[in-house]
């Protein structure tokens, strides 16, 4: 097959420093999907952007060619006018953030038809007809309504569909998708990937898929280019690269990819429980101020949450964005006050249980010493103006522990625990990578010797290989210090390795709760099944089962009779077998 685009010896750098993309070459055959895989900083995004010449201003193209078949024009050399004719027409692009890539002031229909007006000189009516046809194909139930709606009316997944429609409406020969699903929930990701695949099959275009997720690669790609630090590590057919990786880096990436384990038998129901944290009939409603004279509306973030975290174990709450899982975590730490009637009890070691939301200042300080939090975004969780040393000694200072010297020693020791060197104490956080910062954030949470750690998606902003290391670290610390974790995540595969008990949340309620082994052995709720099915795994032989995803990921009112619920009237969470609870009608 003739290559549609060949990239030859592409080198891009910033300023006087070493190139960030270094001698990259690859070819994209007509009608196939090429995946550019790599971690952040590998140069994969710069590489794919250079094809459309949309590099950041400071980037210098140092060498290389991008040849577009059939005339083999070098896209890096042609005039600005010519490249504008190609953008959106022959080659189009989908970006990572569906929330930011649509103009909030223009209707979806107008934005999408603009491409046709620019490149096809289409009249309004023709353009609208093609756009509606495209909307239909990307899976909008009511294209007419979508045409008229504005981006804020659509969910993330729907916006990404609109972006895809925009990219596809001019029937490009190449679609560049830059991490198109990274910002989406797992189930939505599966559906969007399925859509891209379908469209590709129908239109026979080529696709460059930029991703950090080998699971996505296995589901989508014909060919793979693995990049690391600006260089191509390995390239070849996806099946071969994934099954028999030839390069050490590829092997490491594959090993780090989280998997949902195959389970032979369910977990044994555990015996007596010694809980450290108990949440009883938790409920949180937010009042939305409507403004003006309209009545305030209220939104229930979570309700009917009964969870108990056993000392020394990990309880994971899994759910998509907006499922109420983070609200639960914040309530558990006392950062948010739940509705009347909710109870959260903390059982310190050898102390009376503390009602987390009814504490005097001194009791509260005592509770905070024992319960700490690890945050999601390693880039915003450390103050950029404080040296690492100051950040780590800050909690000790607040609680008045030790003198200056002891505090410093404790900080150095915690750094050692998380695998970092104590030289870091005098540095500032911005010199460090995301993984290192997450370690620092963990070290800070550990300075007060807590018993309970609440981890709010601690790995979801990290690269796969770094995620793997952080999970190792968290497991090691838990086992060594006898910590208990409340682990919030959207990723069942991550949870599967660290959790002792998993609660799956959807729309503010727990739909299924069981130890991970039981959950994976016998998932009962359609939503749990959808989550498991939607998990992309780096194994060509295990493609995503879209039918299962579609069934479970829909609205709760579309679930099978037994599980269906509508609005506030959900069925109860009942125990179907020991230790396995499912929200279903009897």
């Amino acid at each position, binding site marked *: 097959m003739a290559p549609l685009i060949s990239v030859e010896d592409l080198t891009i750098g910033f300023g006087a420093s070493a190139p960030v993309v270094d001698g990259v070459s690859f070819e994209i055959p007509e009608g196939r999907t090429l995946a550019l895989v790599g971690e952040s900083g590998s140069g994969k995004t710069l590489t794919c952007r250079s094809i459309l010449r949309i590099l950041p201003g400071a980037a210098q193209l140092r060498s290389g060619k991008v040849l577009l078949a059939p005339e083999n024009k070098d896209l890096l050399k042609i005039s600005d006018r010519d490249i504008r004719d190609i953008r959106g027409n022959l080659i189009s692009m989908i970006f990572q953030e569906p929330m930011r890539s649509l103009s909030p002031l223009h209707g979806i229909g107008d934005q999408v038809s603009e491409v046709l007006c620019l490149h096809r000189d289409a009249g309004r009516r023709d353009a609208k007809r093609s756009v509606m046809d495209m909307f239909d194909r990307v899976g909008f139930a009511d294209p007419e309504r979508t045409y008229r709606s504005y981006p804020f009316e659509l969910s993330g997944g729907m916006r990404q569909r609109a972006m895809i429609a925009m990219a596809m409406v001019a029937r490009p020969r190449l679609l560049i998708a830059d991490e198109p699903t990274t910002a989406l929930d797992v189930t939505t990701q599966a559906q969007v990937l399925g859509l891209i695949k379908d469209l590709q099959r129908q239109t026979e275009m080529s696709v460059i898929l930029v991703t950090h997720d080998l699971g996505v690669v296995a589901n989508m790609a014909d060919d793979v280019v693995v990049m690391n630090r600006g260089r191509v590590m390995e390239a070849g057919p996806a099946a071969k690269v994934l099954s028999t990786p030839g390069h050490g880096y590829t092997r490491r990436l594959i090993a780090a990819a989280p998997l949902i384990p195959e389970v032979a038998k369910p977990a044994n129901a555990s015996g007596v429980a010694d809980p450290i944290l108990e949440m009883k009939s938790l409920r949180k409603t937010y009042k939305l101020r409507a403004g003006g004279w309209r009545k305030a509306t209220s939104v229930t973030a979570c309700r009917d949450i009964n969870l108990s975290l056993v000392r020394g174990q990990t309880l994971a709450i899994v759910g998509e964005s907006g499922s109420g899982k983070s609200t639960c975590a914040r309530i558990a*730490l006392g950062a948010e006050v739940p509705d009347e009637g909710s109870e959260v009890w903390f059982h310190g070691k050898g102390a009376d249980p503390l009602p987390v939301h009814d504490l005097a200042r001194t009791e509260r300080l005592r509770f905070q010493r024992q319960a700490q939090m690890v945050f999601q*975004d390693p880039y915003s969780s450390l103050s950029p103006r404080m040296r690492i040393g100051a950040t780590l000694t800050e909690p000790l200072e607040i609680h008045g522990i030790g003198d200056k010297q002891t505090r410093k020693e404790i900080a150095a020791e915690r750094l050692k625990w998380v695998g970092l060197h104590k030289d870091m104490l005098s540095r*500032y956080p911005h010199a460090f*990578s995301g993984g290192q910062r997450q370690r620092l954030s963990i070290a800070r949470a550990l300075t007060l010797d807590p018993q309970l750690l609440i981890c709010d998606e601690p790995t979801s902003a990290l690269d796969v290989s770094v995620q793997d290391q952080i999970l190792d670290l968290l497991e090691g610390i838990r086992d060594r210090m006898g910590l208990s974790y409340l682990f919030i995540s959207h990723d069942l595969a991550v949870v599967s390795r660290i959790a002792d008990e998993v609660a799956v949340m959807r729309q503010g309620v727990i739909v299924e709760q069981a130890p991970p082994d039981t959950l994976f052995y016998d998932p009962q709720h359609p939503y749990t099944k959808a989550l498991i099915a939607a998990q992309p795994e780096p194994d060509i032989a295990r493609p995503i089962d879209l039918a299962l995803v579609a069934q479970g990921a829909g609205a709760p009112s579309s679930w099978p009779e037994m599980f269906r619920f509508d609005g506030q009237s959900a069925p109860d969470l009942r125990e179907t077998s020991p230790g396995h609870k499912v929200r279903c009608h009897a």
Partner: protein
Amino acid sequence: MSMQPDGRYIDNAPYDPAIDLSAIDREDMDASNARLVWRKFRRHRLGLISGVFLALCYIVLPFAGFIAPYTPNERSADFLYHPPQDIRFWHEGEFIGPYVYPTTAVADLENFRWSYDVDETRPMPLQFFCQGSTYSIAGFIPSNTHLVCAPVGATLFLWGSDRLGRDVFSRILYGAQLSLTVGLIGITVSFALGIFFGAIAGYFGGALDWTIQRAIEVLRSLPELPLWLALSAAVPSNWGPVAVFFIISIILGVLDWPGLARAVRAKFLALREEEFVRAAEMMGARPGRIIMRHMLPNFSSHLIASATLSIPAMILGETALSFLGLGLRAPAVSWGVMLNDAQNLASIEIYPWTAIPMLPIIVVVLAFNFLGDGLRDSLDPYKD
């Protein structure tokens, strides 16, 4: 580089899977925020030059008396409205160092004003490090040594003299002492109020926020100039120049804080969502500590930038008030007070040099704006 038999490419450069966990990821970012900001600011040519210029201006302030050939209220009664004099170096093809020609006042009976005859035959060299009238360095060390004085029997009016025969150049130097510091004092007052109200509104939100917001709106809705006028008219006229000066700066500050409070509040609302602030809350830090230790340092640079951008407004405010005769009063000297003398259109036409105090105002205000711009551009060193 190697192609495998199965059509696959594998990089054959040595690959070391071991990672040094403590290795610094971004060498270029391994410095304090101030250093990073400075690195970026250094490249902002205009801002840098303005910064150096302003620094020089402020360093010179305490020594204005030393540089000025005259003291501010020293009158040369024989030389009213004397035009600016040139300093020359060569006399009849011979280098004799800096000198001026002596002048004598002649009554111009046709136009009813003084004109000055220059005696070009007698070059009179300037005196350096000479004894002149007494002034005090930085306001408290008395001295009478001047950098340069007029030669005996001649005058040294670099930028001319005014209605009472006072040297405009010397008065501009002395005027800078008040005009440049009024901005600093005003900004201090404005910052104290703005940060305090902005911070509590932004951090606590709710009813407190609502009250402060409404108060700001009321303050902002008052017409500025009449309010200044009313407030300064309330200053008793028997107060000394220094007391008036302080009151004027405080009035300027009190009226300036709402804008800043809004900026601070907006920034606080954004910062409150940052995870390091939440982390501090979870550690049990009190609000005061969170605001002072975690939030303020993170936008101190924004504060500095907005301060540099609001000082010019203060300077212009003082000038406007004094120009209208409601700000500082003689014998105090400020640029506005000097311009007060230039209110008469006719006198500007005949004696254009009386409007010279406008120049330092323009230059200083521009310099502050350039500096502020430069600072604002380099505040976020983490971007790109």
